[in-house]
């Protein structure tokens, strides 16, 4: 289309030059002819003999510019629309995940049945471990509790619910969990259940666990992946913190997530 704007003029320009072109000698003549052609396309067209047919140079430039701007605008609009649709799809996927995935049905340390929906509207810091754990679980729980306490002390921040889920359902009964959690924080909630229920929640949160060999006392250590999980008030997995992160780093991260949070469930 641009050619249509430019071509007639170019054609018109070139036609009177054709006979002299036949007489060109290479070098000087050709340069001279080209200079004349270009100078004719300049804004000062007033003194010329042949009248231009069609719009002037400035007008052509303006039309091309407007056309280009129009194309650019259409492209930007299409891009924005694609982005908006992508965001919508993502929100919808998150909504489905919030409702459908990671659900569990466990007993808390008071014997009450709990499922994921019970925690909707709260930020949750979750840790998987077992009560017979030699050192790692107590350390990690202490760290988790420290984070909760630091955030509790800040006015204006929503309370964080600490949760401890056992990977040793055989030994960690409701009573055992009650004895264990009292040592850490009054709001620390212990969750246990049957072997299948624990297997299901561990699968949902991608937690590895494997009970080791039993000794003469029937005691054993459960090997398990070590991480503190952060769940948003929508129940979506938001972040995780390894053993290497300090309580301060975790608290800062939780604060950042809280500030950035936008619910997908209403």
């Amino acid at each position, binding site marked *: 289309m641009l050619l249509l704007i430019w071509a007639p003029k170019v054609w018109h320009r070139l036609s009177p030059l054709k006979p002299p072109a036949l007489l060109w000698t290479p070098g000087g003549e050709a340069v001279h002819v080209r200079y004349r052609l270009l100078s004719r396309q300049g804004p000062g067209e007033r003194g010329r003999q042949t009248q231009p047919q069609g719009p002037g140079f400035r007008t052509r430039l303006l039309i091309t510019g407007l056309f280009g701007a129009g194309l650019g605008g259409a492209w930007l609009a299409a891009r924005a629309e694609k982005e908006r649709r992508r965001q919508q799809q993502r929100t919808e996927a998150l909504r489905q995940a919030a409702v459908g995935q990671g659900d569990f049905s466990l007993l808390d340390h008071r014997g009450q049945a709990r499922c994921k929906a019970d925690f909707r509207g709260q930020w949750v810091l979750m840790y998987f471990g077992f*009560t*017979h754990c*030699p*050192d790692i679980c*107590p350390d990690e729980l202490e760290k988790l509790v420290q984070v909760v306490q630091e955030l509790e002390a800040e006015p204006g921040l929503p309370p964080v619910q600490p949760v401890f889920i056992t990977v040793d359902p055989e*030994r*960690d009964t409701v009573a*055992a969990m009650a*004895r*264990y959690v009292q*040592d850490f924080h009054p709001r620390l909630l212990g969750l246990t259940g049957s072997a299948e229920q624990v297997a299901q929640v561990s699968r949902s949160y991608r937690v590895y666990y494997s009970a080791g060999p039993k*000794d*003469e*006392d*029937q*005691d*054993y*250590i459960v090997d398990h992946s070590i991480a503190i999980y952060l769940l948003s008030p929508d129940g979506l997995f938001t972040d995780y913190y390894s053993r290497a992160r300090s309580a301060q780093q975790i608290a800062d991260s939780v604060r950042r997530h809280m500030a950035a949070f936008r619910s997908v469930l209403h």
Partner: protein
Amino acid sequence: MAAPSMKERQACWGARDEYWKCLDENTEDASQCKKLRSSFESSCPQQWIKYFDKRRDYLKFKEKFEAGQFQPSKTTAKS
């Protein structure tokens, strides 16, 4: 068998730390630390003792490794 309470855990860790301090002072010579060893063994469940022993081995190995005592072999000759 019930899990150790917080107090029992802390007693166990204290005994372990004493025993390990003795080992540090005697360059891993366990014969010099027999009393602390038996105190450690009575404060902690057996599984934990095995676990802490393995942990000690690992921490010592890690120290040596980080100090560069294990170097890759210079030649590619089969060892």
